[in-house]
């Protein structure tokens, strides 16, 4: 472990054991769900604080319209510090709008949004965005900048010295498990989809945010890469003590990664809670969303022998 890593703050709280070695055991998504959970994963739901001690993000009766369309309609949602919340919904459900309201990429029409106890309306939007990590759909990497320059962009905007940024970039490449020598100076076009998204995650983490917003981060990836990336991010979320809000249209992914799931449809918040709480929901749409992963599990169980080498 390099000295630079220890100097930069949360590097020391991080041990290599906290990060699962990925490419070695790529486990198909559905199979992992039916396997007995690995020892660390079992504690996942239990680690969630029973009483939300402090709120990282709080949406209070938030509305946002685009013309005559009510994209977000009277939505309230609390996200505690350290929590991993997935917002699930189809296209046009308002989930992306809700996410972008948190760092003022979009301004709300009504209601209030608190981030770490402060009303975002009182925050400088640029400073707010610099302290909240944001992972874009399919990366959103700047095509004219190298991997290192993409990752280091927010620290650069914050005026950190070049040497510190370089050290930070190396540390982040290790964190997202990209070989620094072969990736540092590449342009995004020379990366695979999965590698791009890893760089996207590294960029979001570069300024050491407490909160990370993710807009369908793994949506465009093949299932194996998607699973590996999801699990790796989940491990980072825990080891770094992040608060994460992730948008997805995939209920299976939401169940596997998130502590809590919020379901949106037509700009309204239909239900929110743990997967178990959701399954007791009375809403037909929520139940329909939960039915798909169940069906997949049953079908896979029937098709694959239980003792299959996984």
């Amino acid at each position, binding site marked *: 472990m390099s000295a630079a890593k220890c100097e930069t703050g949360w590097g020391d709280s991080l041990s290599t054991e906290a990060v699962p070695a990925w490419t070695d055991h790529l486990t198909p998504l559905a199979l992992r769900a039916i396997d007995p959970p690995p020892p660390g994963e079992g504690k996942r739901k239990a680690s969630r604080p029973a009483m939300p001690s402090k709120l990282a993000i709080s949406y209070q009766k938030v509305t946002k319209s685009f013309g005559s369309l009510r994209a977000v309609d009277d939505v309230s949602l609390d996200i505690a510090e350290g929590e991993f919340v997935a917002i699930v919904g189809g296209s046009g459900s308002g989930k992306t709008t809700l996410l972008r309201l948190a760092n003022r990429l979009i301004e709300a029409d009504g209601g209030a949004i608190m981030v770490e106890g402060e009303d975002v309306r009182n925050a400088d939007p640029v400073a707010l*965005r*610099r302290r909240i990590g944001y992972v*874009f759909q399919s990366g*959103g990497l*700047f*095509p*004219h900048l190298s991997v290192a320059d993409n990752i280091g*962009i927010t620290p650069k*905007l914050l005026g950190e010295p070049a040497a510190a940024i370089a050290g930070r970039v190396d540390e982040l490449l290790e964190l997202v498990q990209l070989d620094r020598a072969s990736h540092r100076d590449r342009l995004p076009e020379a990366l695979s989809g999965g590698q791009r998204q890893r760089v996207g995650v590294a960029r979001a983490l570069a*300024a050491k945010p407490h909160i990370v917003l993710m807009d369908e981060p793994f949506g465009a990836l093949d299932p194996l890469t998607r699973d590996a990336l999801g699990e790796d991010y989940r491990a980072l979320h825990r080891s770094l003590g992040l608060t994460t809000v992730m948008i997805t249209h995939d209920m299976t992914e939401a169940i596997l990664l998130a502590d809590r799931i919020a379901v949106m449809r037509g700009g309204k918040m239909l239900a929110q809670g743990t997967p178990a709480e959701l399954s007791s929901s009375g809403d037909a749409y929520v139940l329909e969303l939960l039915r798909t992963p169940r069906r997949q599990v049953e079908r896979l169980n029937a098709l694959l022998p239980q003792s299959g080498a996984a």
Partner: protein
Amino acid sequence: MSLLSDPRWGEALSHLADYLGNHVRVSLAALALGLAVSLPLAILTRNRPAPRGILLALASIVQTVPGLALLALFYPLLLAAAAVTLAWFGVSFSAFGFLPAMLALALYSMLPVLRNGITGLNGIDPALIEAAKGVGMTARQSLVMVELPLALPVMMAGIRTAAVWVIGTATLSTPIGQTSLGNYIFAGLQTQNWVFVLFGCLASALLALAVDQLLGLIEGGLRRRSRLRAGLGAAGIAALVVATLVPTMGRSSQGYVVGAKTFAEQYVLSALMRDRLQAAGLSATARSGLGSSVIFEALKAGDIDLYVDYSGTLWANQLHRTDIKPRAELVAELKTALAKENITLLGELGFENAYALVMPRKRAEALGIRTIADLSAHASTLSIAGDYEFFSRPEWAALQKAYGLQFRAQRQMQPDFMYAAVASGEVDVIAGYTSDGLIAKYDLVTLDDPKHAIPPYDAILLLAPKRAGDVRLRTALQPLLGKIDIATMRDANLRASGNDANSSPDAVARWLWGKIKQ
């Protein structure tokens, strides 16, 4: 004599530093001004469709104005502006040469820069602009760090197009008094010196290519983030500017500037006057190829010091007179009128270069035509050609009115081609010039003007207001007054229309001085 061993290449080369230097300076200044205006406009209007549309429409309209006309329009525009600033602020500026050429060319460069700038900036994936905002960039940082670098290839393509256009169009700035590589082309066309024409075209094409390649080098450097490449390109452009400044700085003040209009006789006479001034120990240069309407204003404003005009031209165009007076009386009246504007009419050179209707001798005899009155009976079956200004001049109106002339067709031609055209039967009659040597060469006759519809056109020497009391200048020019008769001038013009080394204006001017001294 082969084309390559022609001594006129050497003569052309001797002007290169001056012409190329001026050409580079006016082109690059225009391009820099065009960029300084267009790039911010492209950036400001990139998200505003309405002003963007208006801007692009305006730039497109400018582009449809022919380059020569645009350049010519800027001259009276600036003259008016100079008059206003003089009246309001007590300061005046020269509306001649560099300034109007630079402004017109800058305007000309705007369309490709604007259009490509806007296209480049609008073509960026909105997700990337969102990402720039998301990672915490301000609008300005997003522009500088993301949008401009991504739009760069398209923007640079526009800048390179503009550079090539401006360098090409700058050859047309010669008639408004800006020395450029166009001096070769205009002089070459007027004196049938194809070596000059070719030289001017080659030089401006090579310059355009060189600047385009240097800009390409800068573009590549910016795109690959290579300081070396971008630096080399920028250094190349800078070197070009410095190299063109050195010869000018080496030369002291230009001294007396002798003006010349755009035809061979004027080139010869300006060379003759320049030689006389230099022989008297005065520093002098010739400024050739000036438009007929530009040159008088340039003299009045002091941008040139002396030139030869024709009494009838000033009578009609400056005094707006339509009546006709005998030669001597007209010159005397003109002298008084010009003196009111502090312009000195030093005297007549001795010959007249009037418009005259000209036909092949044999054809005229066959049809029994000796005068314009005889011609009018046949006019409806004949065609006439004139130079670019003749048909809009008062003389033509006067001719039509006096003789009731109605031709079957009328055409405009480069003056030097008219004589060959009428000799070959391409047209039946031309409005030629009485002093032209080609009249004898092609065995043409000038038709008499019994009703005196065309005023006399004595060649007269004019001095700028600031040179009114200049005794050395007057003394140097004195030997020329009244010494050039029509036969001598025709001979000189015939020599100048030849296509060999002895036909350059400088060589003919030396021959002419030899005749005058006798």
